[in-house]
């Protein structure tokens, strides 16, 4: 996408801007009738200062720029203007000069980022249409007096009013979301059916002019740092670089003069490496064909380098290097590593695409990202103190659940009431995760509840409190089936109209509802939208180990909001934070039924690969399995690798009679098994009694009366988290709260030791707090 770079000046004060819909900006600044209409329609008060157009002028760059470049140029210009603006007012000539210079420097920096020779022309190839009114050539100054409008005053004002109205409503439905054009268009088409399809960009751009929506490049561009040269049209050759450029090329640079024909030829011989089929279409090296190199024979189809090319060469060799930040995806935070570059027909450059979040839509360097500013709110969200107790009573929690929820609630209440420290806006900190690789450490609360503690029940009071106070809450969970399972429960509790459910392929993509339930990937589409972000199973795939999703979760929260993390097995760095008191935490050490977690026992066995190779099962394993089967349990058998699951199930089937089972009662499954859902279902209803699985089943599956065997527990695939989660499959139901957990393997590993310590520690805590019910004879199962 192409954008127009311009500066608005009033009384010597300049502001640099760029626009994706030039027509909207042109009218807004130059036509006072239109602007009045927009302000009226947009619901802004008519401030007389705002409508004063006397000294207003626009300096416009005639050539549309790739969107990312335009943004970088505008940002850089603003920095420069702010630096010098305090000293003196800028003249019109200076503004025009700066515009041209910023465009050249920023484009060059972007091209350098593309790791290409910064010589190819990144102008508009013939294939890129630029819609709207034709731009002036070069750079030009426009003033309101110099404009002639075809329509009369009233219709211009009406048009402004119409756009202003659309802009306001568009901003309302986009608030808190950060969307690509295609997604935004879909939202707007649903919410504003009376708006014409082609008007959407104008409406969004108008909302941007009103300050209600932020328009950004989808990838944060590199903005030059430092002063490149002494600028000023009176002394264009003031700097070292410029002087050298002048000496070398004998031309005045940056003032719009063309190089004379003779010079151009000379320059061409210097830089004859560029091959182009059509003027302006750069063909990267790997795609150059013989036609590309041969056709220019006569010189007729070969476009000579433009002045920029010469300049950039000189800049590279004689100038101070232009430095800039690095390119980043604004949606997922990924840096250079996840970017792929390719020639782009929408901007005419070799332009970067973020591959990390490609499944959620394509973020290009020249693509627009539409960010709805979060709702303005007077004051902070207040949860009255007296309301906490009734809230907790309402949701019928067990004592352990209730205590943890109460702690979380108190934390939320206190945090929401606390002003945020400084201006910790996320927009300036986009690069954060690459440096730190983890969450921002403020306003987080960890709800550490053992497997089977009833985490879902505990979140209800938290959501209720935030919704009652008029805030917005988000529940994010890694898996889609959990979303689908939880959605009806939340709808029943809080009302269907207040809930919005989002997952890949969900139909609901409108404005943000007070309560949103989403898969973690959907968080990419939010920005500063929620007062409470609840992240379920933060240590599970895909959330764990994916900095992109952490970044997204961070970004989805309002800066004055609270994050609550829910897990049974916090990653080690979070455990450390808890120990050191950096992360407030509430523990639920006991299951909802009040019985302790089954503690793992060790069983020394040879490695699984040997059993598979020899086709023999050790007698010790057979005995242990048979005992569980005889006690009437269902058996989870976990193996480390996908390929072992089915193979080991086969081996067990051959020994079925020795285990006291039939061959049909044994099944194996893994992440690659298309039939997994059915197998798990038959395991649940006890048609299958023994299920061999990989860690794919470590979470979310609850089977009454189950025992857990983990083979090759010393394998590196099984870390503490996985072991605790797998062990947590045993004894979950109230009827049979006792289960057996066996860690089988040749060695004891640190992970196993930590897992056992973890489980014992939780049981001890439960005992100390008096949460445990006494194991009575009837509840205790005979395990022989």
């Amino acid at each position, binding site marked *: 996408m192409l954008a127009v770079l311009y500066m608005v000046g009033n009384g010597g004060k300049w502001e640099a801007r760029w626009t994706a819909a030039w027509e909207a900006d042109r009218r807004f600044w130059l036509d006072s009738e239109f602007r009045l209409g927009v302000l009226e329609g947009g619901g802004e008060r008519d401030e007389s200062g705002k409508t004063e157009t006397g000294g207003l002028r626009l300096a416009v760059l005639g050539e549309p720029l790739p969107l990312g470049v335009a943004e970088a140029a505008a940002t850089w210009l603003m920095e420069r203007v702010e630096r010098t603006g305090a000293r003196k007012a800028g003249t019109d000539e200076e503004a025009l000069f700066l515009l041209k210079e910023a465009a050249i420097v920023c484009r060059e920096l972007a091209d350098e980022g593309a790791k290409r020779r910064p010589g190819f022309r990144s102008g508009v190839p013939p294939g890129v249409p630029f819609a709207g009114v034709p731009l002036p050539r070069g750079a030009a100054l426009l003033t309101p007096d110099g404009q002639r409008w075809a329509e009369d005053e009233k219709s211009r004002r009406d048009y402004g009013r119409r756009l202003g109205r659309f802009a306001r409503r568009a901003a309302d439905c986009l608030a808190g979301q950060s969307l690509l054009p295609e997604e935004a268009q879909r939202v707007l088409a649903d919410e504003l059916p009376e708006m014409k399809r082609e008007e959407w960009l104008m409406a969004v751009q108008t909302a941007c002019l009103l300050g209600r929506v932020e328009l950004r490049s989808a990838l944060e561009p590199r903005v030059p740092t430092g002063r490149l040269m002494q600028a000023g049209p009176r002394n264009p050759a003031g700097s070292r670089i410029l002087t050298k450029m002048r000496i070398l090329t004998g031309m005045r640079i940056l003032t719009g003069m063309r190089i004379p024909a003779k010079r151009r030829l000379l320059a061409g011989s210097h830089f004859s490496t560029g091959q182009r089929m059509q003027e302006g279409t750069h063909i990267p090296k790997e795609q150059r064909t*013989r036609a*590309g190199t*041969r056709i220019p024979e006569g010189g007729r189809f070969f476009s000579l380098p433009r002045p920029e090319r010469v300049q950039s060469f000189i800049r590279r060799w004689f100038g101070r290097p232009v430095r800039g930040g690095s390119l980043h995806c604004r949606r997922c935070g990924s840096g250079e590593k996840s970017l792929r570059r390719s020639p782009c027909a929408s901007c005419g450059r070799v332009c970067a695409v973020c591959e990390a979040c490609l499944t959620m839509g394509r973020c290009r360097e020249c693509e627009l990202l539409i960010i709805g500013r979060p709702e303005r709110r007077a004051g902070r969200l207040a949860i009255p103190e007296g309301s906490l107790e009734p809230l907790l009573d309402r949701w019928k929690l067990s004592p352990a659940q209730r205590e943890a929820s109460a702690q979380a609630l108190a934390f939320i209440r206190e945090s929401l009431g606390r002003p945020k420290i400084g201006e910790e806006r996320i927009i300036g900190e986009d690069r954060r995760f690459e440096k730190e690789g983890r969450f921002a450490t403020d306003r987080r609360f960890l709800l550490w509840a053992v497997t089977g503690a009833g985490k879902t029940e505990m979140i209800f009071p938290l959501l209720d409190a935030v919704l009652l106070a008029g805030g917005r809450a988000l529940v994010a969970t890694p898996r889609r089936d959990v979303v689908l399972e939880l959605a009806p429960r939340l709808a029943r509790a809080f009302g269907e109209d207040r809930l919005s459910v989002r997952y890949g392929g969900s139909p609901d993509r409108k404005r943000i509802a007070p309560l949103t339930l989403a898969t973690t990937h959907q968080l990419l589409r939010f920005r500063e939208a929620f007062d409470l972000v609840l992240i379920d199973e933060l240590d599970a795939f895909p959330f764990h180990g994916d900095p992109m999703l952490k970044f997204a979760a961070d970004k989805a929260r309002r800066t004055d909001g609270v994050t609550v993390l829910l897990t049974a097995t916090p990653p080690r760095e979070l455990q450390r934070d808890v120990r050191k008191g950096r992360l407030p935490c509430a523990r639920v050490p006991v299951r909802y039924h009040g019985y302790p977690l089954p503690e793992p026992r060790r069983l020394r066995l040879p490695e699984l690969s040997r059993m598979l190779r020899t086709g023999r099962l050790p007698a010790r394993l057979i005995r242990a399995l048979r005992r569980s089967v005889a006690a009437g349990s269902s058996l989870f058998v976990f193996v480390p690798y996908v390929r072992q699951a089915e193979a080991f199930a086969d081996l067990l089937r051959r020994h079925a009679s020795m285990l006291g089972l039939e061959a049909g009662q044994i099944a194996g499954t893994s992440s690659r098994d298309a039939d997994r859902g059915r197998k798990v279902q038959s395991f649940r209803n006890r048609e299958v009694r023994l299920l061999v699985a990989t860690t794919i089943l470590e979470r979310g599956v609850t089977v009454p009366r189950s025992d857990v065997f983990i083979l090759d527990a010393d394998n590196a695939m099984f870390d503490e988290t996985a072991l605790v989660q797998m062990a947590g499959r045993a004894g979950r139901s109230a009827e049979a709260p006792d289960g057996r957990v066996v860690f089988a393997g040749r060695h004891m590993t640190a992970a196993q030791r930590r897992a056992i310590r973890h489980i014992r520690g939780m049981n001890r805590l439960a005992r100390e707090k008096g949460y445990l019910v006494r194991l009575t004879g009837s509840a205790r199962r005979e395990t022989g």
Partner: protein
Amino acid sequence: MRLLHRLRTMDWSRWLRAELAHCPVCGRAFRPVAVPLPVASGQPRRELGALCPDCADRIPWILAPLCKVCGRPERCEDCRRRRETHFVVSRSAVRYDGTMREWLALYKYRGAERLEPVLAAMLAHALERMAAELGFDEPGKAFGMMTAVPLSDERLAERGFNQAERLARRLAGWYGIPFAPLLRRIRHTDKMSFKSRSERLTDVRGIFSPDPLIAAVLVRRSHSVAACARQSLSAAGSGRRPPVSGNSPRPLYRILIVDDVYTTGSTMNEASRILKGALGAGFELFGLTWARS
């Protein structure tokens, strides 16, 4: 200091780990193994080798075309019904089944450009086979020039790339066939994939025009070929046609039109019709598509 820091933060375990490749389609890590591939040339073979065995297995190669015209592996009604066929033959690399549909959608609509080399390498299969059918051992000798079915400006700006052109350019690079955009799309049509057969046939009429600039190049090139041919005729004194004379000079009059999917052949036929009209006699047009539905 810098160096020390580098050394300290370097991932040394990489040196010890077995090299794992990531499949560009499914993203899964795997150990590369040899899979039989119906492509002879080195570079495309390497690109296809980047696929994991599972994905490589799912490619429905067209190994034996049945329809002599369009290369369909089944009996083909469209070619029999067509009144005038302006291209000589057309060949496709794979059948357009669910998997291929998914892959193409991933590349074309989702913009997963990492798939591009793989798709181009698949197209190489059809190119090599077509060259063999024409009696050449190397595609570079069989075809004088390559072009692609263009997109409308609007669609191009929206998508950012023309998939057919990208694939063609890669092939062109691998086999040393010059690529040139010979066509322009002058009319914006709705997506072809939403249309019925009869709609497609009437709809494609007049959607292309020859690109004036490059057509001129072609004519010029054909003169140079003719000059070379005269030369070789006078040198050898035989009446043999230059294109079959093997190596240099490059015969130009077989032109390859590349597209992504061949459905009824109406797009291909229309493109050939326009090119034929613009270039006049002495040029033969061949179709090359990635998938045949």
